[in-house]
Structure formats: structure tokens, C-alpha cells
């Protein structure tokens, strides 16, 4: 089925002009990333995995945005696309007012120290053959952040800020525990003096007591250096703790984006509601009405038509099956993509459209039947 694109102005205009405001460090507009599926022999593209499909958000300078969702919903792809580790398919990303995808190779290289990433698995993201001092210092030397004579001193200072004593410098990653390694990863990102750090599940591989250490460290560093984070995680309680705004993703779409207090106190989208009700609460007497979602996340290569969540939604309506809802501002700063919150006029328009599409579908079905009969 061909994708129905209705009312472009509803989707494209939300964050237009937001990149001119120096307060917004990161502005993402209608970002799309499709991974082509090639046929095995002729390498012809036979379809697309829509990992990120029309996502928009903004992050204010010095704040943290949490990005949550189930695995396979495109959280990590967003993180990587923001850093231009992978190229986009469509859309725009502004970091500090500069369009990241419009930069030339040289300009991008100059921009790189400003945007850093902390990866999920501290066991896999450190080179086993380099000592710690070199892991942290390599990029510093490469980008000439400090003059060579201050180099050693600078690395020691960075390590100290991350809670690593400077006699660790000649040691190798295998000598450290998971929590220490994650500190090394943080020090490596911090050493370049970045504005913006993408934290891609930085604590999910760690134990609870070590998690708390790392989360506190990230927060302290944010206060100290005025960092901006994009915090990708599937642990909702950690996200609530650390973020100022939260974006909820489902199958490549952003379904809700709002300040943390608002979204946790009053989730609008049925998916967000179900997601938050599934958080295990550490109190045996605490009984919640858990909304249990049936089934599992559909394949992103062949997503359902209309609203992608309609196959699992409790409040699914007729319109959801045909038309993708607009991502729009319901209250100030509270964005949501759901047909439940359509204005009456818009609902009327959509109803007409649905009726039309149904009629078309019916025709198609009947002609096919006739063909079959013949």
C-alpha cells in the first residue's frame, strides 16, 4: 500500500525556526533513516527498514533529554545519526545552529569534538591494546585541544573529574571492572570538551549500586561543565531521574515528547501509558492497574498502515488503521501523535478521507475477486 501523506504542514512546521534560538542546542526536524533491504543476487533494493521515520525534537542547552522505547524502535539509530556516524535519508539536524549534514568533511572534523558519544557496553567499546591514558588522550592530541606541554596534566584533570586516580594511566582496560570502564568511556568523551553527549544506554550493562555511581557522575559533570545529554535508555526509572524532557518512541516514530514531570504524571499516548504502567515498583503492597500490551513490536520492514501502534492499542479507532496521526503540540511543550486528541474539524476531515479510502479499497477488493472468479 502506498503511504498516504496528508497535510504536510501539520508535520513539518513544529520546530521550524527553532534552530535560530541559541537556547536550543540540538534541533532535529523530520529526521528519517531508512536502511535498504537488498535482494540477495542482483542487489536491487526491495524494501526499506524504516528505523527512524519522521522524528522531530529539540534539546535546550544544559538539559538532558531521555529517549525511551522498546528495543528495535530506533533509539540508537537516532543517536548515531545525530553524530553523523551514519548518514540520514531525509530531514535536518542542527547542533549549535549548524546543519550537521550540510558540513563538508573538514568542517565536520572540526565540529566532532563538540559532539561525543558514550556507548552501551563498556566491555566492547574500549580498545584492549591501549593503556587508559592513551584511550582518553588520543583524540585530545589529534584535535589539539591543549598544547603538548600541558597534555599530561590535562588528562589527569579529566580523569580526576570522572573519579579515576591518575596512576591508572598506564593500565589496560581488562584490569578494570564494568563501572570503572564506564568511567573511562565518560572521561574519553569529556576530554574533548564537548557541548553535547549522546549517552547510548550507558548504565544498562552495570549493577544497581554501580549504576547509581555513574548516574550521579553524569549529573555532577553536567552541572560542572554545562553539558547537554541525549540519554537513550529503556530503563524508565533512570530516565525519569536524569532527564528534563522525555521522548517516547515506537517503531521509528516519536509518539510523545514532553517535559519529564508532565509526561510521567499525565501520559497522553496509549503506548506511553502502557509503557509507564509496566514499570516494576519496589513495593510489594503497591498494586497498579497494569496495562498489558498484547503481542510484540511489529517488524519495522513491514510496519502496519496508519498509526503504527494500532495493532496493539486499546483505544484503536477506525481512523487509526488508515491514517498516520500528526505529531502536534497539545499543551505548551507537550507533543503527542495520536488521533484521540484531534480537533473536531480535523477529525471530520479525516473521517471523510477514511471513508474515501475504504471505498477505494472495497473496489480494489471486488475487482480482484472478479479476476479470481474469471
Amino acid at each position, binding site marked *: 500500500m502506498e503511504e498516504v501523506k496528508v497535510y504536510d504542514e501539520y508535520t513539518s512546521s513544529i520546530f521550524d525556526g527553532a534552530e535560530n534560538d541559541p537556547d536550543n542546542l540540538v534541533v532535529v526536524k523530520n529526521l528519517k533513516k531508512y536502511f535498504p533491504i537488498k535482494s540477495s543476487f542482483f542487489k536491487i533494493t526491495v524494501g526499506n527498514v524504516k528505523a527512524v521515520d519522521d522524528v522531530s525534537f529539540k534539546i535546550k542547552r544544559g538539559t538532558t533529554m531521555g529517549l525511551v522505547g522498546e528495543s528495535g524502535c530506533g533509539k540508537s539509530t537516532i543517536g548515531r545519526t545525530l553524530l553523523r556516524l551514519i548518514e540520514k535519508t531525509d530531514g535536518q539536524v542542527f547542533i549549535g545552529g549548524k546543519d550537521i549534514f550540510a558540513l563538508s568533511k573538514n568542517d565536520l572534523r572540526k565540529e566532532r569534538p563538540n559532539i561525543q558519544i558514550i556507548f552501551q557496553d563498556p566491555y566492547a567499546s574500549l580498545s584492549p591494546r591501549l593503556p587508559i591514558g592513551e584511550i582518553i588522550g588520543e583524540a585530545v592530541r589529534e584535535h589539539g585541544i591543549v598544547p603538548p606541554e600541558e597534555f599530561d596534566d590535562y588528562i589527569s584533570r579529566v580523569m580526576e573529574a570522572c573519579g579515576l586516580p591518575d596512576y591508572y594511566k598506564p593500565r589496560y582496560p581488562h584490569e578494570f571492572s564494568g563501572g570503572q570502564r564506564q568511567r573511562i568511556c565518560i572521561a574519553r568523551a569529556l576530554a574533548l570538551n564537548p557541548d553535547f553527549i549522546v549517552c547510548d544506554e550507558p548504565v544498562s550493562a552495570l*549493577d544497581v549500586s554501580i549504576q547509581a555511581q555513574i548516574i550521579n557522575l553524569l549529573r555532577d559533570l553536567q552541572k560542572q561543565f554545562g553539558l547537554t545529554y541525549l540519554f537513550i535508555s529503556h530503563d524508565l526509572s533512570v530516565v525519569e531521574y536524569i532527564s528534563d524532557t522525555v521522548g517516547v518512541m515506537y517503531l521509528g516514530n516519536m509518539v510523545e515528547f514532553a517535559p519529564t514531570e508532565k509526561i510521567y504524571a499525565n501520559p497522553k499516548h496509549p503506548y506511553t501509558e502502557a509503557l509507564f504502567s509496566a514499570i516494576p515498583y*519496589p513495593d*510489594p503492597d503497591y498494586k497498579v492497574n497494569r496495562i498489558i500490551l498484547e503481542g510484540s513490536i511489529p517488524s519495522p520492514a513491514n510496519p502496519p498502515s496508519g498509526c503504527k501502534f494500532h495493532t496493539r492499542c486499546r483505544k484503536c479507532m477506525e481512523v487509526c488503521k488508515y491514517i498516520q496521526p500528526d505529531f502536534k503540540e497539545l499543551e505548551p511543550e507537550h507533543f503527542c501523535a495520536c488521533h484521540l486528541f484531534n480537533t473536531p474539524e480535523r477529525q471530520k476531515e479525516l473521517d471523510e478521507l477514511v471513508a474515501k479510502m475504504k471505498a477505494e479499497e472495497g473496489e480494489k477488493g471486488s475487482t480482484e475477486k472478479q479476476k479470481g472468479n474469471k
Partner: protein
Amino acid sequence: MEQKKKSSYISARESRKITRFNRKVTRKLEAQRADANKDPKLYTTKMKDENNVVEFDNMCTYFFTDVGTVRAVDGVSFEVPKHSTVGVVGESGCGKSVTSLSLMQLLQRPSGQVVGGEIRFNKGDGTAYNIVNTPNSVMEDIRGNEISMIFQEPMTSLNPVFRIGDQVDEVLFLHHPDWTKEQVKARTLEMLEMVGIANKEGVYKMYPHELSGGMRQRIVIAIALACSPTLIIADEPTTALDVTIQAQILDLLQNLKEKVNSSIMLITHDLGVVAGMADYVVVMYAGRVIEKGTASDIYHHPSHPYTIGLMKSKPVVGHKSDTLYNIPGNVPNPVNMPNYCYFRDRCEMRCEQCNGDYPPAIKINDTHVVSCYRYIDKGEVLGYPKAVNVEEL
């Protein structure tokens, strides 16, 4: 460089000594196990309390490795009562998985050995197996039939080259040799329906890679429950799954427990998961039980400093605080454990007494037991955990 030597450096001579010692000990223990084959009396005992399914009594599981003896589980005692869920909580490396593997006799032998204590498993007729000495031939009847296990990674615990149906059938064929093919298939389909798979006939013929993570975990649960075991060990059943799928699986486990009428031993590091599921909670740290009690004992009156710290270090939705509490330091090295309280060096409430021996288990009310010197005057002392002196073996 000096610090490095202290932590992990072993000279060639020491290394040879350790290897020789390990060979001697493991040979002796293996010989003891072989003896048990001859006489069933050696592995039959009596339960202390008939209402328990399993009793761990001062169980010690050590690993004889090339860097020294690792005391993975050192004097652990707790019980799993009938028809209840016991949650075992702790950080990675605290011995919670090794406890369950010892119960199933799935330890990597000969380097991993249960060197002391008893694990009593209720037969139901007044006698009990002492799992520690039970020979393999008898274990084969128990495993999967009376005790079954749900592993952490549903992706790796299913065989990728066999159909789902065949994998569920296999358990039934093994434990019910008199059943016909039709009976087995009917039971398998019944199990698949029970774990909430709508398209059971279709799934019966599918391969594991055709299913999602949540579905695979359902299959693993179906395999575990196929023979209606009296005890299900769920070793981090939801860690690899998403929050929404986790809620589905926990819900399913809770319902099935009532249907099949068995007990669950739920091993996890997530305090939230345990709170919703368990009747009793056991908190482990560095190979020892530091606190056990009913769920409300542990969650409403956590007593051991480690439990308190663990509760505080997990952010809770709806409770905003400025900084998160964190437990300083790391878990001690399991090769040479100190002889005082293992948590002393990380503890913020330590006192004079903590410099002495490892604290005994202290009963502070009918169900709540804690090993901490802060309660020594406030309850009945139950006794010290018994470690096994390796040199004497």
C-alpha cells in the same frame, strides 16, 4: 607497580602449587561422588520441615580455578516453601546463579564442586533427596521433571536447528516413556496454549528464529512447565526483554504458578520485579545470604546496610531526589575474601564489632533474618555460616 603485584600477580611456583592442590581436591571429591552411586541411603535424608520444597543448609560451592579457590557460595541456608515464590536478589557475582546451578547439579565439574552442606529436595513421601550426593542417573529423572529451569537468554536456550514442537516434545518423551506420540503432541499443544500462544499449530512447526524474544521466552516457559514440576527456577527470566514484554512474562509466570501448583525460585537483580512477584525474598552478597524474610519485611523494614543501600540507589518513578545514594566501592575479590564482614569496607554504619568474625544470622522477628552486628542484641542468634576449610579436604 607494587599495587599490581598485590592484586593479581601469581608467580610460576605459586601457580604450580595451586594446580597440584586443585587436582588433588577435585579427584577426591569426584571419587566421593562415584561412591554414592552404590547406595541410595547416602543420598536420602529427611526434610526439616515437610512444608518446604527445597532446603539449602549451609551449602558451599567452590570453584577450584588456576588463580585460587573461588568461594562462589559460602554457607548459604534458606528454604523454598510449597506453593510460594522466593526471590533471590543480588548483584552480579554474588552467587545467586551458582546457587541454582548447584541445585540442578549443572555446575561445571570438576572445577566447580559443592564441598559442604546439604541441599534437601522434598520427594513428597516423607523422605528427601540430598542433591549434593545424588548420582547423575537419579538426577536425570529429577531435572526437567521435578525441578526445571528457565534461563536468562531465550535466544540461546533454544536449539536453532530443531522445530519448537520437537523441543517441547523432547522433555515429555524423556520423562514419560510410556506416552504415545499423539499424547505427547496433544500435551505440547496444550502447553503452548497455556503460555498464551494463539497460533499453536503454526508455532509447533516453526523454528526459534521465526519468533520474537517474548515468544521465545514463552516457549522456554512451556518447556519448563511441561512436566508440571514442583519447583521452577527462573534465572533472570526477563532481563533480556523489554519492559512491556517483561510485564507480560511476569504476569504469565504468576498465573501459571497457580495453575501448575508449583513453587518458583526467582533469581534476579531487579528489586522491582521481585516486589511484584515474591512472597519471600533472599538478599545475597558476595556468596552469602545477608538478609532474608517476607517481601514486606525486606521492602518495608530493610535492615542490612547493603539492602538499605540497594533500595536507595535505584531511582523510583515518582520520588524525585537530588542525588542518588550510591554504595561506595566494589564487591571484594572472591579469591581471597576477608575474614570479617564482607560488606564492612563499603558500609557506612560499621562499628567496633564489625572488625571481628563474620556476623552470625540473627532472627529479628519470626520471618526476618539478618546478618549484621547492629542487631546482635535485638534478636536470637541463629548461628554462623559455616565455611569449609579447603586445606582439610
